[in-house]
Every structure is written in C-alpha cells, then in structure tokens.
C-alpha cells in the first residue's frame, strides 16, 4: 500500500505484535492516540477558529468576558474522567503483566556490559538470543553483573529494568512465531547500543528440535552440581547428613529458622544472598564465618546454576528442613503463599 509513496514504503508504521498481551496494550495505545487526536483537533480548531473569527476589526471592541465557573468545572471534570479510564485500563494491564502465571517456564537472563547471557533450565546457553516456544508462558528471571540494564522486547510490549543486587523478572506468552528484536533500554555505557539481540518464537516441533541440542554440560542443575563440587561446597553441605553446614536437600522454598529468631523462606533471593554473603543470615544452630564469601568469586550465572541445583534437590517428598520445631514442610505453592503473607 505504501509502495506508491516512495520512501514511506520503508517505514514500518505498525510495530510487530507477537503476543495477546501486546495486542491488549496496543488497543489501549490506539485508544490514547484517538483521545489525543480528538483533543488536539479540538484545541487547534478552537485556537484557529477563535483567532480568525475574532480577529481585529475596525469598530468592533473586545468584550471582556471574565470567565465561567461552569465551563471551568466542566473542562476539568470531563478530561479527568477520560483520564480515569486510561488509569484504570493501564493499571489493569500493568498488574497482569506483573503477575506471571504459576505454570510459567523459567528462563534466566544475566545482563552484563554489554551482552545478555541467557540460560535455560535444560542447560542450553545463548548470548544475545532467546528461543521460546509458542503459546507457553515464559518467565524471565534476570540479574545484572554491573550497572542497571533494561530488558526490552517491543514485539511483546514488555520491559523491565535489571538492577544489580537482586533478581528482577518479567513474563510473556508468545502467540506469533517469528524473529523479534531484544534491546537494552537503560543506558549502560559505551556499547549500550550493541546490547541487542533476537528472540525467536518457534512452534512446538521446531522448539523441540532446537532444545534437543541440549547443553553440552548437562542441565542447569547438573552444571550447578559441578560447580557445587568444584567450589568445595559439598565438603560441608553434605547431601544426607548433618555436616558443618545446613543440609540443602528439600530446602528450596521452605521456611528456615535463623539464629536471631527470625524465620525466612528459602527462595531465590535468600539463596542468592546466602551464596554471595553467607554471613548475612545464619541458620539456627550453625556458626558464622564457616563458609567463605563468594561475592566477586562467582558470577551471577554461576549463582543461577547453583540455585537450580539446590532447587533440583527439593523433591516433593523432601525430608524435614533444618528448621527444628517448624511444622512439617508444606507444599511448595503453599509455602510460597505463606512466605508472601509473612513478608507483609
């Protein structure tokens, strides 16, 4: 259609929409565009119309109209009501975008000056590329090695900053196969504009084929297990009996009693902190200063591998946790809920 307009043919006027959520957000976008257009046209007509209708004429004196409270209130309330619609609509979509479905498949992303390192649970690893199956919810758990980055995929209308020091996340569910862009959208230094990549949405069979390549070093958990041995973790964190350090089997997402009387949930954030700064929280009955600090020793990728390994130890029939006196381990989902409630 644009071909006859020369260079306009080169402009992609519609951004690709590769998920249902992207379509929902685009609908809101077009609503906002329509409202803005109507308002702009109204104002322009008002300004141009009044300017010509009441241009200076000989013998016609200006009439000092001072104002009108009715008008003022009207043109305050009506735009505000329209804006309430925008607020409600936008917040509703935002809230959905912030709440990943329970069954989402988890992929790990580490941002680092200036690349995105992607790790899959099955051990596949990529740089600046992401492969996802169509129709499946995908949750990205993201960490930064250095400065603030922002992971952005315009085709899904998703974006989240990746702030060093903790995990950030976003989720999406692709509905269109294709090849879409990834950007870093928080300025992160010299090669910021090269921190870009591609996300490929594949159908079931294609994805199966792609994934079957597998990681050369086994699954993410297996990679973690290797690290666990290499770094000497296994000498103190014994698998089935009490060593100098807590047993990690069945630990994930379970409550842990600390030596200062608090109880915390052993979630990703807790595990990350306990690997990097073991002294930050000491499990009840154990000594501080036993485990070395791994801050600066392990990369965020390594930490993700180790956490995957610890997760893999959390079989449903897990043994009771370290937390003596705690009620029997609740199912993972329930524990997560309890954790969320406890945090409030």
């Amino acid at each position, binding site marked *: 259609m644009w071909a006859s307009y020369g*260079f306009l043919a080169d*402009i992609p006027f519609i951004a690709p929409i590769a998920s249902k959520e992207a379509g929902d957000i685009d609908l809101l976008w077009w609503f906002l565009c329509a409202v803005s257009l109507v308002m702009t046209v109204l104002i322009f007509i*008002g300004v141009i119309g009044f300017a010509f209708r*009441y241009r200076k004429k000989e013998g016609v004196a200006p009439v000092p109209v*001072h104002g009108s409270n009715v008008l003022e209130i009207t043109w305050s309330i009506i735009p505000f009501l329209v804006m309430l619609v925008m607020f409600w609509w936008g917040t509703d979509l935002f809230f959905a975008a912030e709440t990943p479905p329970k069954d989402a498949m988890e992929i790990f992303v580490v941002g680092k000056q200036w690349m995105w390192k992607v790790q899959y649970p099955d051990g596949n690893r990529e740089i600046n590329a992401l492969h996802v199956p169509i129709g499946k919810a995908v949750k990205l758990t993201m960490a930064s090695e250095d400065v603030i980055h922002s992971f952005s995929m315009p085709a899904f209308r998703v974006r989240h900053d990746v702030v060093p*020091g903790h995990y950030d996340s976003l989720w999406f569910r692709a509905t269109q196969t294709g090849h879409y862009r990834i950007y870093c959208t928080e300025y*992160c230094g010299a090669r910021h504009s090269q921190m870009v990549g591609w996300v490929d949405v594949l159908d079931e069979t294609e994805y199966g084929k792609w994934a079957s390549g597998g990681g050369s070093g086994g699954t993410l958990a297996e990679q973690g297990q290797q690290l666990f041995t290499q770094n000497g973790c296994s000498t103190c964190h014994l698998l089935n009996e009490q060593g100098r350090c807590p047993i990690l089997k069945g630990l994930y997402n379970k409550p842990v009693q600390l030596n200062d009387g608090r109880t915390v949930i052993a979630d990703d954030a807790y595990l990350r902190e306990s690997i990097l700064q073991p002294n930050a929280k000491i499990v009840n009955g154990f000594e501080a200063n036993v485990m070395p600090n791994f801050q600066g020793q392990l990369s965020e990728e390594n930490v993700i591998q180790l956490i995957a390994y610890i997760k893999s130890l959390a079989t449903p029939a897990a043994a009771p946790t370290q937390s003596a006196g705690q009620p029997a381990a609740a199912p993972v989902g329930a524990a997560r809920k309890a954790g969320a409630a406890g945090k409030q």
Partner: protein
Amino acid sequence: MATLQTTPPEVKSEPVNYLNVEHGWKSWLFTTDHKRIAMLYVFSITLMFLIGGSFAMLIRLHLTKPEGLFAPETYNRLFTMHGVVMVFFFLVPSIPATIGNFLLPIMIGAKDLAFPRVNLLSWYLYIFGAVFAIYVVARGGVDTGWTFYAPYSTTYSNSYVLSAALGVFVAGFSSILTGLNFIVTVHKMRAPGMSWMRMPLFIWAHYATGLIQILGTPVVAIALVLVGVERVMHVGIFDPRIGGDPILFQHIFWFYSHPAVYIMILPGMGVISEVIACFSRKRPFGYEFIAASSMGIAILGFLVWGHHMFVTGQSVYTGIVFSFLSFFVAVPSAVKVFNWTATMYKGSVTFESPMLYAFAFIGLFTIGGLTGLFLSTMATDVALHGTYFVVAHFHFVMVGGMVVAFLAGLHFWWPKMTGRMYSEAWSKFAALLIFVGFNLTFLPQFVLGYLGMPRRYAAYPPEFQVLNVLSTAGASILGVSLIIPVVYLTWAWKYGPKVGNNPWGAKGLEWEIQSPPTTFNFDETPTVTEEAYNYGGALEEHQVG
C-alpha cells in the same frame, strides 16, 4: 494602539535608562540592578543554548546512518552534554532568570528584587557552574546521561562525572537563590494596591516556579553530593555490593527532576498568558483558574516523580499511586490550555510575532501534554519507556513549550528591555520556520518510539533510518531557524528603530514606564487601583456562566 510608536528621529540624546546610566565592564559585573543581571543572564544562557544546540545538531547528524558517524563513546558524551547543558544551564534558568528577573519587580511595582546582591551572587554561581560544564566539555565530556544514574555514574563511568556533578550542584544553588528572591519579592515588595488577585499571571507562574526551586533543588543537590562521595570513596549507599539500592538514587533524583520540568514550563505558561491577553485585548479567560492551576501544578508536581520509575522494580503499589496522581497533575495543565483558547473568544485578535509564538506554544504544548498521558498510563509506559517516544514527548514540552515561550516572551518584551524594535517580517518568518522544523524533527520520533527504538542508542536497526533522516532534516531547519532570532534581536538592540513606552498597547505596570526603564524602574512607587489586564469594554451584558 497596536501600531508601533516609533520615536521620531529628531530626538537626539537618549533619556537616562538602566543601560546607559553607567558604562564599562565593572558597571555590569558589579551591578545589583535586576535588569542588568537579567541581561547578563540573557547573554550567558544564549551562549549555553548555542553550546547545547550544537551538541543536538551533532547528535542528529550522527543518527543519519544506522551505524552512526562517530564512535559510540563520543555519541554518549554528546547526548549527555546536550542534556546537562540544556536542562541545568538553559531550561531551568531560561525564563525566570532573564525575563522573570527583568520584569518581576516591575510588574508588581517594586524598585528591585528583595535581595539585589543575592541576585548577583546567583548569576556568579551560574557562571561558576557553567565554567565547570564547559571545562568538562573541553576535557572530553561526561557520559552518564543527564540523569547521573547510579551505579554507572558512581562506579563504572570513565568520564568527568565529578566535575559535571559539581557544576550542576553549583548551578542548582543559583536556581535556589533566584527562586528565594522571587518568593520574598512577591510577598513583601508589592506596590500598594497590588493585591494577590491583581497580580499578572506571569507573577503567579513565577511564584509557583520559585516554590519548586526552593523545595526541589536542594534534594537533587544532595543526590549529586552522595554520588560524588560514592565515586571518590568507591563505596556508598547506592552500591549493591554493601546492600545499597541503586533505585534509591532515582527516587531522590526525580523528587527534584520531575518538579523541575515544571520549573521549565510554568514560567513559559506565564509568558503565554500575558501575550495572549495582550493580543486578544482581553483579560485572560478564567484568571483565577489559571493562577490556581499554576499553584496546583507546583504542588501536585511533587507527588508524581515515580512515573519515571514504573519499570525499575519500584513497588507496583507505589507505581499505581504515582500513575493516579500523574493524571491529577494533567488537569491544571489542560485547564490552562482551555483558558488560553477561550481568552480569544470575543476578543480583538492581532497577529504580531509574539502572538504567533504563543499559537505555536499552545499547539506544541498540547501535543506534548497529551503524549505525557501515554507515559503516565502504566501499561503503555512499559511499552514506551526508554524509547524515542519519551524523547519526543519531553522535547515537545521543553522545546515546543519552553523555548517557544521564551521566544514569545523575548519578542514581546524586547522593545521594553532594549527600547528598540526588531524586524517583524524576520520574526514571523522565524516563527513559521521553527514550527515547521520542530514538528519535522520530533513527530517522526513518536513513531520511532512506538516502533521500539531505544533512546541513547549510538547505532540503531536499519529499518528506522528513514524516520531518523526525516528527523535530522527537521533538526537542520530547526537549528537554522533558532539562529535567526539570535541575529535579528541582537541587531535590533543596536540598530532597531526606537519605540515608545508601550508599543503593543498592552496593560501592565511594565508598559507604563520608560523603555528601557530607569535603574529604579519607578520615580515614585505606583499605587495600583485596578485589576490586571483591564482592557476595557462593556462588562455587564456579556458575563458568561
């Protein structure tokens, strides 16, 4: 009345005014006259504007090719220095320090600002800060973005962050002192009879601006101090390695920097209120509402900073509150636009160049304001955050709003400031060119943003090239068209035809005194007996509502 009242050429010796009362550089550098300080500011911020503007031209030049023309490191320094210079050394002081400084005392019937020496000090602080900024440019620049986000600015950047932060810190105190001076002057120096509801809307706008300057600026000052200390000590409260949270910097930074956009637009709104009233020959429609909306914007503006942080990991619930309050602050801005439009209703509209700039302002500010709604709506902000949509939005407000309003104000009061008139033909031509060039520059950027092109990118995907070239074409028109006023206004100051005290036939104390004014503005403190904008006419039968 609207015809120019040029003084007949037979008048030989000029009457004494603030410009010719003293001569020599000392009489300028040690002056405490608010009008001379205003002119000092006019020179200095024009210089900074030209520096910042040349960075902008280089940025647009770079972006004509997807892979760029300069090294990415150079590009990063270009956009950072463009932002730092334009925001802290042009936009924040622009109207308040020049036109505001010149007119605020006159409009309320005072002989000077409350603290003339503090006013001079504030100019020196500005110069001191600007020297630091220029030093940074000369040494190779700073590459953090004008926002100085931690931990990039504290730990990872290899550029002149400390000097740049110090420059901004010092310039910040210049801004605080200006605001302080305005607030005290408005409270304590009004002439007899100049009640609050008789003040011109320009004064209301500057009072509101002053509030933001004194309440917000110290907070960004401390944020920059903390970044500086962290950079020197290699450890600090924004450092995640000791448990610090980089997002806290953004809170402290935006607590100032969001209200700061109202520092940059409120004085412009004040100018537009004056210009529209004068060239419609009418009191602004809904005077009380325009005045109240200035105050409303100043206060509500402090409650919405988190809409810059929806995707940072800020609490979702806090984000919702910020989003809601952001829509609140849109209402007073909309009210102003409606009232300016309605002011022309049953007026007697003429089309002198200040009025053309005012029309451009209303159009561009409307678009700038409406696109702001996209960014306070959370879901669309997620899609548009950090893209060229944001760039286009704030340039519509900052350039289409503030710069155009600044030009409107300069054209409106230049005869008062210099006693001479500029070329009407050139100024109309420039106004038209600015409008066209501006839209061509920034409208394509909205599309780019929607398509997902990130801001601060030294290289971009090739499919965005056409729109970028269009934008650069617009920027070259805009660049040239912004030089034109600099030339003819300067020329007019020296060679323009002399004008009388009230070339526009406008109302207001500033038009009742000599052009250019004498050092103490008024021979005798005036007594105000009527409301502002009393353009006359039969009132009773046409009262609406």
